[in-house]
């Protein structure tokens, strides 16, 4: 069981490494969107400090969104996906591997660069730490839930826009608890509660979403 997951992760990572421009462009999208906000709302540090968690999280949702359509599309186009569906392993495990690989190339870089962007918004060291940690444990949920949307919109026209229509409302809890954790730290309430809920969302979506995505893929492959 673990073998098939690691095999899929290894394969997807290798493919991603061959096309590094995709990873980098999603990352820079994140950086640019976050940097646009101070230009829009003004440079007052107090305001920026208040906005930072929400802005960083919304930008993270959008950046994850960008790379989702490619999660299954390339494999679908060259027929790999059908082979994976025919393989003796449950398709849900294959999707689990793909979700983890997607997080490693899209969520993890966001968490790594988030502290730098947080400094731009004049966040305190505590808040930066919580922000990084929240993005680190929250983004797997984004990849998991997003996989359902990616599977449902596989091969449809206007798939990208449709995908955001389907998935963004489902991202709301992650956004609330992710930004809430940083907010609670800044106001001195402590973000542990939010972080625990965020971790719960991540585990729940990693447990259930791959199977829902597998069902959606089977519908798409019929």
């Amino acid at each position, binding site marked *: 069981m673990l073998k098939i997951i690691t095999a899929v992760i290894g394969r997807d990572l290798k493919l991603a490494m061959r096309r590094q421009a995709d990873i980098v462009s999603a990352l820079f999208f994140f950086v640019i969107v976050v940097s646009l906000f101070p230009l829009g709302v003004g440079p007052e540090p107090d305001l920026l400090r208040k906005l930072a968690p929400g802005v960083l999280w919304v930008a993270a949702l959008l950046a994850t969104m960008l790379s989702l359509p490619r999660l299954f599309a390339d494999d679908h186009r060259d027929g790999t996906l059908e082979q994976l569906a025919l393989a003796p392993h449950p398709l849900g495990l294959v999707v689990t591997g793909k979700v983890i690989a997607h997080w490693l190339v899209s969520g993890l870089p966001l968490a790594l660069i988030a502290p730098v962007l947080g400094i731009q918004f004049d966040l305190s060291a505590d808040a930066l730490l919580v922000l990084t940690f929240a993005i680190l444990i929250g983004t797997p949920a984004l990849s998991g839930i997003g996989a359902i949307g990616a599977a449902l919109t596989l091969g449809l026209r206007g798939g990208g826009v449709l995908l955001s229509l389907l998935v963004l*409302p489902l991202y709301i809890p992650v956004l609330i608890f992710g930004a809430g954790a940083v907010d609670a730290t800044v106001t001195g309430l402590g973000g542990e509660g939010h972080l625990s809920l965020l971790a719960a969302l991540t585990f729940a979506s990693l447990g259930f979403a791959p199977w829902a995505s597998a069902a959606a893929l089977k*519908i798409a492959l019929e």
Partner: protein
Amino acid sequence: MKDRFNLYRFASPATFYPFAGTLIPYFVAVSVVFGLAGLWLGMLVAPTDFQQGEGYRIIFIHVPASWMSMFIYLVMAGWAAIGLAFNTRLSGMMAQALAPTGALMAFLSLLTGALWGKPMWGAWWVWDARLTSELILLFLYIGYMALTAAIDDPRRADKAGGLLLLVGVVNIPIIYFSVKWWNTLHQGSSVNLAKSSMATTMLWGMLLMAMCFWMYSIAVALMRVRTIMLERERHTDWVKAELLGKAGEEK
């Protein structure tokens, strides 16, 4: 065998189409009767609220619309579950037929809420947990309709839409509670709906209006499902017979 009443017989569009046709006038009639009674009770009989004045009367539309918007999503998810489990054709059609009505109800509930909120709270919109979750519900309806509209193959549209509905129904409680906690953590206690003891005439007016909305939704969904059936089954004999029969009547 044929004479015995069998529920499964109506799973076939060919038998359900005329059955729905005979039911629609009754639902329309009942809806109109309940609607007139509810409006009469709500607008003319029910006393003026001592706190909110005449403005409160918008609840006779607002509350039934909100109830229906939530209930219809559950019904759609129920149809989706039946459709995915038993692979029936009618289930997907019913879910698709209900979606626009559900979205309309969610929109109506938001619109009347805004119209009520302006004089009562002094704002068209506040980020109250109920308002926010109703808005998200509207987004879920729109997502479902966009997905089914984007898929050309009706069978795949039914199944993919059904799966989305089930995912949505699992997520609704999570979204609702996260929004609720977000709201209480952010701004402390916000506006309260002031649930004072309601006069019995108000309650009756609201229940009658709820019944009216209920019957309206069923009638409209049945009408819509009939057109969906005709569209999808256009290559079959019974649709040809149906349409030719109608054309003959008009002559």
